[in-house]
């Protein structure tokens, strides 16, 4: 396989985000999406970013991917400032992003084709990656013939085809059902261990972030700031049974507490607008009642 990992490569893939702020719009319509965020991903580390919806976590990922320029602060990959998208960062999107007009194999080959790799080499790489994803027998199918889980697996190996140093994942399993999700998480950890690649993973699913990550950043509601940084000391390789252990459960508890406050804060204006405050919703400490 062309992307066999050497020790030298393991040292690459260091993402550093420093004092990052993003503001959309101007004057009265100004929205601060992300405010003063600093975070990093060590080479070969799996880091999750978790927070309520609309907290700017996807914006952060867009900056690291190179789609959005920060208003202040900077993001670097291995010391170089990130200014535009590039194949040194593989991106897996929440929406299915396979090209519907290309066969599954041609989709995986796409990045290599753009890099000018010759057809026969592209073919070999794509086939070995599809084999890894367990989808070699579907190489000549079109994406619209496949299920959501299959599409995302192909999306992941397509992002890996150009041997990027980091993988950026924006809620890649958000559209999948729970059973498929759990299987996909296991597949992802396997792939990650094989490739020894740095991953920045965006999610709002607490169990998912614990199961996958070495480290988790919890973000606040808008404007997004880093609220907490939590290490996940669970041993590797991770298995589905681990989710039943007390260690896992206590991590879930801790994260749930942190997220709940932020989710309520994020939803407060909506709840108020819909007149729900009149329903006497008091849900204990840090519940709805406290916010109003």
């Amino acid at each position: 396989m062309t992307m066999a990992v050497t020790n030298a490569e393991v040292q690459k893939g260091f993402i550093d985000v420093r004092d990052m702020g993003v503001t959309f719009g101007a004057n009265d319509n100004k929205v601060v999406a992300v405010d003063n965020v600093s975070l990093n991903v060590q080479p070969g580390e799996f880091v999750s970013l978790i927070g309520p919806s609309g907290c700017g976590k996807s914006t952060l990922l867009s900056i690291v991917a190179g789609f959005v320029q920060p208003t202040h602060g900077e993001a670097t990959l291995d010391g170089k400032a990130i200014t535009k998208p590039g194949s040194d960062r593989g991106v897996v999107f929440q929406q299915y992003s396979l090209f519907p007009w290309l066969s599954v194999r041609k989709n995986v080959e796409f990045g290599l084709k753009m890099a000018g790799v010759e057809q026969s080499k592209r073919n070999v790489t794509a086939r070995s990656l599809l084999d890894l994803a367990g989808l070699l027998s579907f190489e000549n199918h079109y994406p619209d013939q496949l299920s959501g889980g299959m599409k995302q697996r192909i999306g992941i190996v397509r992002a890996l085809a150009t041997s990027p140093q980091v993988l950026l994942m924006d809620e890649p399993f958000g559209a999948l059902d729970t059973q498929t999700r759990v299987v996909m998480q296991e597949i992802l950890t396997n792939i990650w261990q094989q490739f020894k690649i740095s991953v920045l993973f965006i999610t709002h699913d607490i169990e998912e972030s614990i199961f996958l990550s070495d480290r988790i950043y919890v973000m606040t509601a808008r404007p997004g700031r880093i609220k907490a940084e939590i290490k996940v000391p669970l041993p590797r390789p991770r298995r589905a049974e681990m989710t039943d252990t007390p260690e896992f459960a206590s991590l879930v508890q801790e994260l749930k507490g942190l997220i709940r406050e932020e989710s309520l804060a994020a939803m407060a204006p909506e709840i108020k607008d819909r007149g729900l405050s009149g329903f006497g919703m008091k849900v204990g400490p840090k519940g709805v009642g406290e916010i109003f």
Partner: protein
Amino acid sequence: MSVAAQLTAFQRLQLLLTRHAGVRRIWLFVRWLLMLAVTFIGLLGVTFFIGRKIPIDPLLAMLGERASAQAYATARVALGLDKPLIVQFLIYVRDVLHGDLGMSLLTSNPVIDDIKRVFPATLELATLSTFIGIVIGVPLGLAIGKYQRVRDLFMPVVEILRPIPAIAWVPMSIMLWPNNEASIVFITFIGAFFPILLNTIHGVHSLDGVLIRAGRCLGASESRLLLNVILPGSLPHIFTGLAVGMGVAWVSLIAAEMISGQFGVGYFTWEAYSLVNYPAIVLGMITIGVLGLACSGIIRLVGVLMMPWLAFAPGSKQ
């Protein structure tokens, strides 16, 4: 008594149709053929009866005013004009089915020869104009769709020129181009161009942004993004534009041919009117219809061949 036995023959036939996709498809095809046959017999009937009932006596037109009564009578019998109309019509239909569209009573040429002579020109002009429409419309549409600056430059012009029907370009076109053929191509091109252009722009705009971002992440440069993501992604809309453009081009082409008085089926049909040759008018119309049908059929076929993935796209009929 079983349920099946209680059904009438008609109900059984209906069941057969709903249960077997193959039978249904054959039935739909047969029905289509029947409709086509009815349409054509209807048109032939119109051709024939108008041809026979016009106030101008075809024999007089053929033989001239000073022909002897003897010659007149012989010609009348030779052409079968002494038989009852319905018999004449049946003979006519038989001849048509044998590929013999009869003689033009006024020009004495076999009508089929007349048609054969004129329709290749029409097809050539239509193909050439649509081709130019694609070559200019698609790249310009992609550029307008993708780049704000190109849009700002071209869109105001497009918005002003678009509502002008292709036919309104005739005087300008005659002055602009050295000969009739070039004018006709230009007018037909105008007809094809705007639907192709606007649908291409629409195709670029309705392309899912995540595909463009995915392309960029995978290392596609701007030009390769255009060629490898935006163009194939817009292809379904481009083909819609092509189908519409072909239709408009066809209308414009026939009208331009009629005005030019030199080429094609349009000219043939118009000339038939000038010569009061009613059967030829209707045959011209039928030819125009059949050729138009063939052109849009070809575009649909090319579309299916070029975009096999659409068979699996959400919302397709499978």
